[in-house]
């Protein structure tokens, strides 16, 4: 299957690979997918408590090139957004940007799920004083 240049670029030069401490109250962690399905994404956002903007985002992904590219792209798009704006990112935008073939659409769905899970985790931390580590969701 031929891959678009954008997929290859994100795969070969993934943006924002890494991790924040999941215990950090300003960090939201989303972990979606399952190893037996061949896709696991961990996506984290770090929110500036003063501005409310996502000032940094990181990911780690176990999956095919399209899954890696989808999560890499998602971290790029998240930076500078509010968490509400982050929830507005749709998988179809990822499909379009990366020119994902139909069999790879699920990779973009997973990225959208990861964003939602990270935001949810962050928001839960704001209402609960106890720091939490993220479990799997998806």
């Amino acid at each position, binding site marked *: 299957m031929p891959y678009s240049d954008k997929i290859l670029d994100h795969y070969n030069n993934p943006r924002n690979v890494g991790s924040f401490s999941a215990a950090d109250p300003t960090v939201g962690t989303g972990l979606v*997918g*399952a*190893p*037996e*399905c*061949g896709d696991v994404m961990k996506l984290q956002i770090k929110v500036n408590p003063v501005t409310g903007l996502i000032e940094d985002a990181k990911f780690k*992904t*176990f999956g095919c090139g399209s899954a890696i590219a989808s999560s890499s792209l998602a971290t790029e798009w998240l930076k500078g957004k509010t968490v509400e704006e982050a929830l507005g990112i749709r998988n179809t935008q990822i499909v379009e940007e990366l020119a994902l073939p139909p069999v790879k659409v699920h990779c973009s769905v*997973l990225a959208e799920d990861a964003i939602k899970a990270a935001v949810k985790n962050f928001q839960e931390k704001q209402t609960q004083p106890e720091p939490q580590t993220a479990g*799997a969701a998806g």
Partner: protein
Amino acid sequence: MAVKLPIYMDNNSTTRTDPRVVEAMLPYFTEKFGNSASRNHPFGWEAEAAVEEARDQIAGLIGATGKEVIFTSGATEATNLALKGAAAMYRKKGNHLITQATEHKATLDTCKRLERDGYQVTYLPVDKHGQVHAEQVREALTDRTILVSIMAANNEIGTLHPIRDIGRLCKEKGVLFHTDAVQAAGKVPLDVNDVGADLVSLSAHKMYGPKGIGCLYVRKKDPRVRLEPQIDGGGHERGMRSGTLPVPLIVGFGAAADLARREMAEESKRTFALRERLRKGIMDKLPETYLNGHPDERLPGNANISFAYVEGEGLMMGIKDVAVSSGSACTSASLEPSYVLRALGVGDELAHSSIRFGIGRFNTEEEVDFVADLVVREVSRLREMSPLYEMVQQGIDIRKIEWAAH
């Protein structure tokens, strides 16, 4: 020395047609274009002589006689003919067949159709190395069993089955024995009489011959095997498979089989050495890598390796200048990994992490070293990007996490 890219290392899928084979075929497209069934002019005689020579060359590879070779479009058709043809011909004797879980789809899907048509099929499980054993076959045999079909070597993991034990058991019990020898023929010695095979499927393009031609060996005596034809017409191939013979392809198949017979011993030593060089070059440098299939009883050129915490298709993109196959099926809607690896009890996670390397006649030491280094580099890079690897480094047992399947 710089290697030429891309590198072909997927020789269990298909092989490059050997230039010597192409050379042998060429005249049969042009000046020697006759129909081998034309009995009354020299164009036909010439074509027929070439076909008969090819028959003998192919028979020579498996210890058979030329008359026992029935040409087909490939091994898929050969296996369809063997199973459906025997099932229909021996319907009065019974309605039961025995096969095993890691057969090629040509066998499994043919068996499924036979089940829909009222036959009963036993699918034997394999052990952790991917082998079935004669004892399992013995226990599954009934007085209604027509045929047992067990492949000589598996196409994904390269495991060799103990077909000699199984064939001899079938002989003793008077049950037909079919073996899909597509992967084994020309790579490991195979003699139909030694093994006790009654029906054998072969394919030219897996042994450096052309695509579009294969054959079914059909035993002529002790016992004389009869088959219900699946394609009717002019009565070619002893009435078992009608249709004008593709003479150039058959000549190529014959030449490929002849080369395989003459060069097998040397070539297998060479491909085995290259495979071991690759396997060690990768597995000695990377922890948590696993060789799928049997450690010793396997095809000389096959290495199927799982790389924990790295997804196979993702890895394939990283080594895109190397043609290999993955046991992962992330491209399919089902997301289901290889049924062969599953049958071995390899977990889905490791099945998704598998790559099949198929080394063949035209691979070089330089290519093997290049591939080993590239794989080590890419797996290390992808592990640094893998959340699973990170969790394991942190001491988290990823098996205990409640993953939400999607």
